[in-house]
């Protein structure tokens, strides 16, 4: 056959096209974030400062960390409502272990392993029995919250070792530790979803489970791993958060799952699976973080903040959609 394509030239082009599509989608979300920052910057000069940047990032770090795991679950068409409770349980587990004299790094590690174990239970039930992830993880939401209270009925503050706040407050090269940890997690998940075989399979399962099955992919095992990782990132978020607030607290993280899901969906992952981008999720988490922060800095009254937050969310998703459509149309036309 004469018309064999020359491998390299077209490969380059296509690669560009593919990453371009993702880039366009991510850029649309980024545009929303930038727009929002612009508005807040005009409203208050306290907004656009290095210290506030660190403040926002530090506050957004737990959401970012937990939503990395959840993004992959959602790309594979799953869902995990238990992340907020796992975060709380991880917090008190790390706290009680630390108080009991377990070395800090070990306490943190065990808390993260606890998250993995919870994820494994979720995964085994959901993937193994093919039941609704919503109900299973809603059940786990309750169980993990209960476990958190049973381990420590109220916040653990007394007896925590001095290093406890290291993960939450230390700085590395001028960057607050939570940001560094979030950055590492994001990098790992970015590489995983974009460049590994496992990553490709996640998209395949979410996009067309039957096709994935017919390709010999072990769906159950893959899903199991995803839930395990999701539990781990939730628990890691719990460790970082409790290190930051200086306590192990069973009350934290109520409603956290909604924040995480919102960040992910704003970031372009859909509930119906098969599509999603880690970087989009990060931007989504920042949009949510900037929103709360900006409204506070602009001095909006608390009750009006509810309204403003709601309006901005809706406007954000509409702008996101319009920018996407506009750019994709332009590119098609070109």
């Amino acid at each position, binding site marked *: 056959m004469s018309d064999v394509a020359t491998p390299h030239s077209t490969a380059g082009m296509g690669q560009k096209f593919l990453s371009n599509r993702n880039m366009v989608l991510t850029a649309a979300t980024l545009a929303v974030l930038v727009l929002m920052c612009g508005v807040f910057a005009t409203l*208050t000069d*306290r907004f656009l*400062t290095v*210290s*506030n940047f660190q*403040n926002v990032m*530090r*506050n957004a770090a737990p959401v970012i960390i937990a939503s990395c795991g959840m993004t992959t679950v959602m790309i594979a068409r799953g869902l995990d409502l238990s992340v907020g409770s796992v975060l709380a349980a991880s917090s008190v587990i790390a706290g009680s272990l630390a108080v009991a004299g377990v070395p800090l790094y070990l306490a943190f590690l065990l808390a993260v392993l606890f998250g993995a174990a919870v994820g494994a239970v979720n995964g085994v039930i959901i993937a193994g029995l093919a039941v609704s992830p919503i109900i299973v993880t809603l059940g786990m939401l309750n169980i993990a919250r209960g476990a958190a*209270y049973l381990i420590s*009925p*109220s*916040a653990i*503050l*007394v007896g925590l070792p001095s290093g406890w*706040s290291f993960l*939450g*407050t230390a700085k590395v090269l001028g960057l*607050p530790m939570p940001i560094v940890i979030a950055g590492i997690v994001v990098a790992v998940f970015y590489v995983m979803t974009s460049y590994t075989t496992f990553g490709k399979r996640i998209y395949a399962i979410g996009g067309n489970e039957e096709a994935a099955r017919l390709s010999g992919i072990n769906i159950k095992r893959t899903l199991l791993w995803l839930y395990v990782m999701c539990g781990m990132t939730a628990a890691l978020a719990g460790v970082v*958060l409790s290190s*930051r*607030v*200086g*306590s192990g*607290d*069973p*009350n*934290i*993280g*109520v409603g956290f799952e909604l924040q995480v899901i919102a960040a992910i969906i704003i970031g372009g992952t859909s509930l119906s699976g098969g599509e999603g981008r880690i970087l989009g999720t990060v931007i989504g988490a920042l949009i949510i973080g900037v929103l*709360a*922060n900006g409204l*506070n*800095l602009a*001095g909006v009254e*608390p*009750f009006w*903040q509810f309204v403003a937050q709601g309006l901005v969310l809706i406007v954000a998703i509409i702008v996101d959609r319009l920018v996407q459509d506009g750019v994709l149309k332009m590119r098609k036309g070109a």
Partner: protein
Amino acid sequence: AAETAVETAASTFSTDLCEPIDKAAVADIPGAVSGFTGYASAPGMWLTEPEASALTGKRIAMSVMSLGHPYFQAIANHWETLAEKYDFELRVFDGRFDAGTVQRMVDDIISYAPDGVAFAPLDSAASVPQVKRMLDAGLKVVTYNVQPAEMVAPRVFANDFDGPRIVGCNLARYFQAKFPERDPVIGIVDQPELLQVQDRKNGFLYGFLSLMPEARVAQAVNGGGVIDKANAAASDLLQAHPDINVIFGINNDSSLGTVAALKAVGKYSDEWGALASVDGSEPIMGELGNPVSPLKAESGYGPYDFSLAAFNLLAATIEGEADETTQVVVGYPPIIPTEDGIESWLAQQYPR
């Protein structure tokens, strides 16, 4: 030798209310909204453990706003001790800090049909019909903690305005002594949807502005009353107003979240300014006794006092010796930030 900040706080400490030196400065502060504030009757006899109790041998339901809260945890513990000592059957119901859960819980308590109920409302207004529902079902009910907005049942409550007002007075006294040169700029870590919390906030402001009418209130942010949300809100507060040097946290979680926020931006020091809250749970007492901590004024909200008063009031109600006009006011004793003051408070209210 210069005295430590704790010593300053102790020496300026007072159990008295302060009166406004400039009425205009406090004129705009709303009065108490969550219900009664006027009772000054000392709890006296309600706070003694009796020889015998009418509760002995009875089935008692006791509810808490949220069991995952150190204050209610302590309440539940005190009640369990009382149940053992006076030999009655105790069932604890958890409201999970949720209006819907509390509504359903009320019905479940009615189905459970106990001999007496010690009920902790979530909201002063919404609790009125809830209590009526239990009374209509023939139950003996007392309420404790947040007071229902109407007199429907015997109740144990605290003066949510005047209690925090003393904290405001004491913090102003400390601030004047510690930072005679500075103009106070106030931030509040708030939880605006709860009425009794608004009383706490307004009471604090009333007290502080009574002594320092020049103080400026920069902003109140919604910290949700839990440490993780309070921490983020306090961080924003500090970012929005770097000149803030006074913060009131509406409960201990709010001020603990603020402590973490101060640490994160390197402001955690007695030199930064002054922080106050109410509740007096164990972790906050560590801050109160810590010279470098900016937390320098605290009024207690004692679980033991509330438990015992509610216990005695319920017994009186069952025996027909109390009715809806019986009001017991406890709470908000200002805690002197000395080692003794802190220890004696904790020993009674939060026994280990």
